[in-house]
């Protein structure tokens, strides 16, 4: 047992029992971040802030929400929105944060792709990040069902139905997921459980692993420069702060992040109070009605690109049903980002995209193609729209087939130069 002395103060008392000083050093004041970064490096902390908002507002909503198809709609739209003091605020914050967090996730993700922060030792950061994206998607989908509005019901109907396309077990799987032959009370209750318990637990765990995965390869910088963190940290601690290439997480890195979070939350509260329809679709303010199919069924904006890949193949090819090809393409789209570190065959060289000419073109094509998919994913898939969707889907698939080839060429050219 350690030798316990009379404490000189609270911190000392805690330090003798929990080693808090060492802990703070490791986690905050001597956790080193490169200095050569821009505001895109603040997206992690913005995401953390939004996630905290989701947890806190979710806890308040949980006090009044009733997971029962007969009660859910009114518990949200009457009890929470009208009866409970500031219930509307928590609901608007929850709904808007859920939508905005996906925008920030996409920015965070494309930052990682642009600066090559997914490879050469950083694979685990990328993999845990993509796992977070997947679980967040499930979290968003299950949450959208809870108010039991028209789109809650019909989106659940369409999306759970997708699993029916899986060979052999599809039909049984759909019933197993729904807990009933149709989307019904059992479905709502189990998605409620997923939304408030199982998925948040998995998310918290994944966030911890995501942060942990950062510690060894360190945070990337905007020139993807590799340097000795220990040497740079030593300079900083010796007082050569201007010369050092690193800064501590607290207070230097976070001081910048607080500023960015401040801007993000200013915009956020504007959206919460004045401009929320994009996140809280008006159609979901009509109660679920299984006799009345809405004229247009579409997912929330952040699922649109993969939804468009799903329905991009609208005609049978070589005897294979359009729906099955679509489902296969959809499956491809949902795992392919996960594999990015292994599709990039220039494994040993990390550089920002503007220093990788072919990859640079690939990056912007991918971004533009995903925006086209997103926009056309919402439009009715008729006439020319269907063909644009089909074209964009093909481009998406081809881009990922090309990635190993162009990165291989890139590696070869670099090999020839050196």
């Amino acid at each position, binding site marked *: 047992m350690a030798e316990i002395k009379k404490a000189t103060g609270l911190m000392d008392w805690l330090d003798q029992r929990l080693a808090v000083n060492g802990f703070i050093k490791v986690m905050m004041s001597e956790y080193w971040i490169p200095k050569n970064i821009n*505001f895109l490096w603040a997206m992690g902390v913005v995401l953390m802030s939004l996630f905290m908002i989701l947890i806190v507002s979710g806890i308040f909503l949980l006090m009044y929400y009733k997971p029962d198809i007969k009660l859910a709609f009114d518990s949200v739209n009457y009890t929470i929105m009208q009866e409970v003091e500031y219930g*509307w605020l928590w609901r608007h914050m929850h709904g808007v944060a859920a939508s905005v967090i996906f925008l920030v996730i996409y*920015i965070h993700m494309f930052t990682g792709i642009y600066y090559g922060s997914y490879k050469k030792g950083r694979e685990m950061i990328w993999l845990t990040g993509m796992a977070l994206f997947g679980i967040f998607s499930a979290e968003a989908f299950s949450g959208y069902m809870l108010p039991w509005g028209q789109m809650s019901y019909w989106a659940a109907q369409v999306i759970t139905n997708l699993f029916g396309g899986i060979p052999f077990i599809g039909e049984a799987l759909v019933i197993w997921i729904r807990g009933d032959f149709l989307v019904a009370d059992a479905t709502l209750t189990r998605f409620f459980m997923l939304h408030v318990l199982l998925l948040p637990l998995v998310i918290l765990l994944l966030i911890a692993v995501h942060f942990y995965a950062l510690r060894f390869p360190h945070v990337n910088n905007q020139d993807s420069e590799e340097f000795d963190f220990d040497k740079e940290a030593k300079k900083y601690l010796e007082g050569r*702060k201007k010369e050092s290439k690193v800064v501590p997480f607290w207070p230097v890195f976070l001081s*910048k992040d*607080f500023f960015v979070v401040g801007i993000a939350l200013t915009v956020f509260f504007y959206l919460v109070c004045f401009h929320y329809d994009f996140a809280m679709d008006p159609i979901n303010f009509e109660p679920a009605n299984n006799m009345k199919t809405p004229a247009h069924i579409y997912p929330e904006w952040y699922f649109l690109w993969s939804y468009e890949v799903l329905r991009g193949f609208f005609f049978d090819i070589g005897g294979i049903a359009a729906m099955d090809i679509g489902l296969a393409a959809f499956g491809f789209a949902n795992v392919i980002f996960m594999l990015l570190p292994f599709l990039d065959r220039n494994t040993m060289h990390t550089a920002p995209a503007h220093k990788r000419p072919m990859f640079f073109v690939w990056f912007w094509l991918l971004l533009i193609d995903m925006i086209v998919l997103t*926009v056309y994913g919402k439009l009715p898939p008729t006439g020319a729209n269907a063909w644009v969707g089909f074209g964009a889907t093909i481009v998406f698939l081809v881009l990922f087939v090309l990635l190993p080839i162009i990165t291989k060429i890139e590696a070869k050219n670099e090999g020839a130069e050196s």
Partner: protein
Amino acid sequence: MRELKILVVVLFFTAVVYWGVEPFAHSQMHPHVAPADFAFKDLGTNDKKGNASKGAETFLSAGCTGCHGVASQGMPSPMDDAAASASFGVVPPDLSNAGAIYDKHFLSALIKDPTKALKVEHKFNETRPHPMIAFYGLGGDLDQEVADIVAYLQSIAPIAPLSDKQVFQDACGRCHDMKYDKTMSHSDKAALTAYMGTLPPDLSIMIRAKSDEYLSTFINNPQKQLAGTSMPRVGLTEKAQNQVISYMEKVGDRKKAEREDLGYKLIGYMVLFTLLAFAWKVKIWREVH
């Protein structure tokens, strides 16, 4: 400088996505329709000048009170709600306020040809007649007699302005519930469902489900937004329709004022936070740059 360039790129792509999935997509999914027509031009006008006291006699002789009550004139509804629902599918309206909330040309057209004025010709015909029988006149000039009835209805309409809720109840409340204001329609649900083909929706938070533009064109002429719907055209004057929408907003978006007031405070708080954070950031980074 580089940060600004990156910011512009991020904002640009965010704006394109937003424009694509919101204004653009909605304009494709819900095409614009002609604005509300409060003159009801398709029905023509009745230029005859009505005489209210003659109209009172015509009103009685025409048999209007066989179905309609006029409570303000001491004429109760001839049937109770249950019997009226069973006979007509929906409780016929009391006409005490009709002269105040419905357009007079619409009323003229309605009395002469209900299915045409209500725009429910796709639902009612000779084999399935509309419960309101067209008025073919008492033998005199039909347009004059109709104008007299309308003048009578206008003469008995209350002078004091009606509350938003009263207008809603008169115009919409026979079919639609307003659960969140504890106001239910008097028609029997089963009879109403059979009559309309589907149960008319509760309107408690319809204001959050439909845009202002949609509501104003839909109430004015339901077929414009939802071709084939069994909801009849109501014939409200512009003022009365605005009162209906304002009541729907009061019930369905009760916290609007609180939301907007708090919005400014929250934004103000965050602006202050951001300025302080910026000042602190500048101070901290001066040491390391």
